[in-house]
């Protein structure tokens, strides 16, 4: 009944309190502290992010410096097993690279590709969604039909297609230089539809609200209204998709690298590491593929859990 919702606690920040107080008072912060799983996944995500960021400082070895590598160190199992070497906590691979260090460095690449492609998809998707929703008519039809068509292909297929075209155009040597950009482009382009659809839906709701009419009344240009008025009010769901997409983008990158169309083995990402290790799985050197695999799983899972929580926290119906 109507009174029940009216009586529900409303934000009462009457005296404009400081930022910390506002954050404490915030409903999202509250729901965050109330969910232990979310807190754990946030801590794990943060730890992984930091260790990737500071990999050069914390990694025990530099796996990309050939001078420090010795073929004599190859195929050491993890340190706690009988034949392990205390220098290599998680063992070494066929070239004598420390697995722990390659994971730390690999995560950097995975995360960088993930963040960049999500950002790219977000910019493209949000812009097209805003245009489609706010302008409507032919613009809307064209954008949304393209989106519909794209949705009929699996994302990985589109990524493979773009990757293949880029490879063909650039040639094998120069491809090495642009591989990062191609990955971002191919993963990003396969994700934009979701943003566009969500944003378009929210814009359709927002654009008929009276605050938008008030802005039209004083003769603001459509683009100004879209960016200054409508966009801030549709960003909530975008943030949710972006978080969930980050996990997906990391996995997609890993899949591409696993299939051999991603980053080269000289600059391995988590996916590349899993692929390399996969060759040795049946000869008994399980640690080469298992540890990068576990890292990837934990990373994707914790980011995903964060995204789930964010979706629930921003959804007023579930609060």
């Amino acid at each position, binding site marked *: *009944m109507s009174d029940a919702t009216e009586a529900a606690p409303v934000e009462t920040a009457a005296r404009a309190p400081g930022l910390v107080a506002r954050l404490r008072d915030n409903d999202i912060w509250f729901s965050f502290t109330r969910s232990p799983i979310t807190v754990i996944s946030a801590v794990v995500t943060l730890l992984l992010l930091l260790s990737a960021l500071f990999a050069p400082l914390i990694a025990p070895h530099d796996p990309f410096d050939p001078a420090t590598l010795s073929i004599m160190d190859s195929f050491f199992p993890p340190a706690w097993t009988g034949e392990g070497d205390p220098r290599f906590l998680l063992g070494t691979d066929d070239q004598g690279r420390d697995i722990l260090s390659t994971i730390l460095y690999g995560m950097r690449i995975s995360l960088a590709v993930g963040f960049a492609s999500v950002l790219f998809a977000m910019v493209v998707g949000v812009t097209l969604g805003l245009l489609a929703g706010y302008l409507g008519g032919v613009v809307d039809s064209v954008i949304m039909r393209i989106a519909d068509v794209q949705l009929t292909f699996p994302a990985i297929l589109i990524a493979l297609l773009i990757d293949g075209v880029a490879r063909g155009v650039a040639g094998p040597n120069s491809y090495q230089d642009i591989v990062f950009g191609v990955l971002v482009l191919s993963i990003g382009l396969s994700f934009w539809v979701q943003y566009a659809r969500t944003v378009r839906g929210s814009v359709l709701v927002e654009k008929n609200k009276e605050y938008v009419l008030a802005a039209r009344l004083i003769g603001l240009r459509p683009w100004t209204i879209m960016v200054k008025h409508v966009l801030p009010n549709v960003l909530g769901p975008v943030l949710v998709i972006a978080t969930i997409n980050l996990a997906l983008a990391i996995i997609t990158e890993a899949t591409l690298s696993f299939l051999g169309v991603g980053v080269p083995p000289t600059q391995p990402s988590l996916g590349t590491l899993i692929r390399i290790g996969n060759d040795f799985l049946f000869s008994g050197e399980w640690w080469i593929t298992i540890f990068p695999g576990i890292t990837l799983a934990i990373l994707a899972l914790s980011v995903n859990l964060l995204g789930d929580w964010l979706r629930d926290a921003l959804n007023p119906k579930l609060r």
Partner: protein
Amino acid sequence: MTPTLSVRNLRVEIPTRRGVLRAIDDLSFDIAPGEVLGMVGESGAGKSITGSAIIGLLEPPGRVAGGEIRLAGERIDHLPPERMRHVRGKRIGMIFQDPLTSLNPLYRIGEQLTETILTHEQLSGRAARDKAQRLLEEVGIPAAAERLSAYPHQFSGGMRQRVVIALALAADPQLVIADEPTTALDVSVQAQIIALLKRICADRGASVMLITHDMGVIAETADRVCVLYAGRLAEIGPVRDVVKHPQHPYTRGLMAAIPSLAGDPDEKLAQIPGSMPRLGAIPPGCAFNPRCDFAFDRCRAERPDAYPAGATQAACFLHDAKNPPPPEIAGRASEVGLGVTRAPAEVPQ
């Protein structure tokens, strides 16, 4: 005579992380058999929550934290859900603001009516259908026999609300709770629905609790009116007295603020300064004291009980005969027709 509904010291609480909000605080009232009691108040005053509390459908986490609710002498506030469901359909009928929420869009009107009738009465399918048709005729739906097989969306807003009234009355309830039954309707249709509700409940001797923010609707429909403010009783009494001679400063301000079709249109509307406090920020003492012209020290410290005030009861210290307000306040209040100094002879009956 046992009242149809008797509410005593009802308290409804909503626990939130910023503390427990008292949505209804110490509210008592009765509805006599056949009586129409109007519940008025501004949004957030707790009128709808009172209705939900009575029918046991408070939205969680809201809960009845104290007091008693009796239907024809029987306590219903702590019945198990199964029994309460039976009470709701059979003994208390409900009418909500939006008729579409009460009607299932996927079923024909006739099916919904006969289903309700059969749940509460031992009738053959044919007899139930006949009764459904009679009900539709009674609420003024033309060609009732044909309309039984229509779907809700084929009815206009006013006709839908008529169907909802028929549905609410299908099991001959003792009490009908109507929550803003005319708010979603056009003025011209609203009048029809009010007249219908009044007539049909009078015919059956059902009591009505009419919840609305529209004093005009109350004035025309109710016998008595209960005015709520911030979840508490402000004033309760016969409708004419509350409208013409309100005894609580809030009721007085409210009545004066309503634009009317009578009176001088050029005169400025009376206004109450400020707005009703949020439930989390109700001031100590009388909830109305910061907006009240007659507030004195006691009002800021102590919560007033409902005192007899002329023909009504008002929760205001101006009417405390044993401990009268300061003479200056009482003097000012009596100038505008409020307070203990009023001679009983002045009270119209």
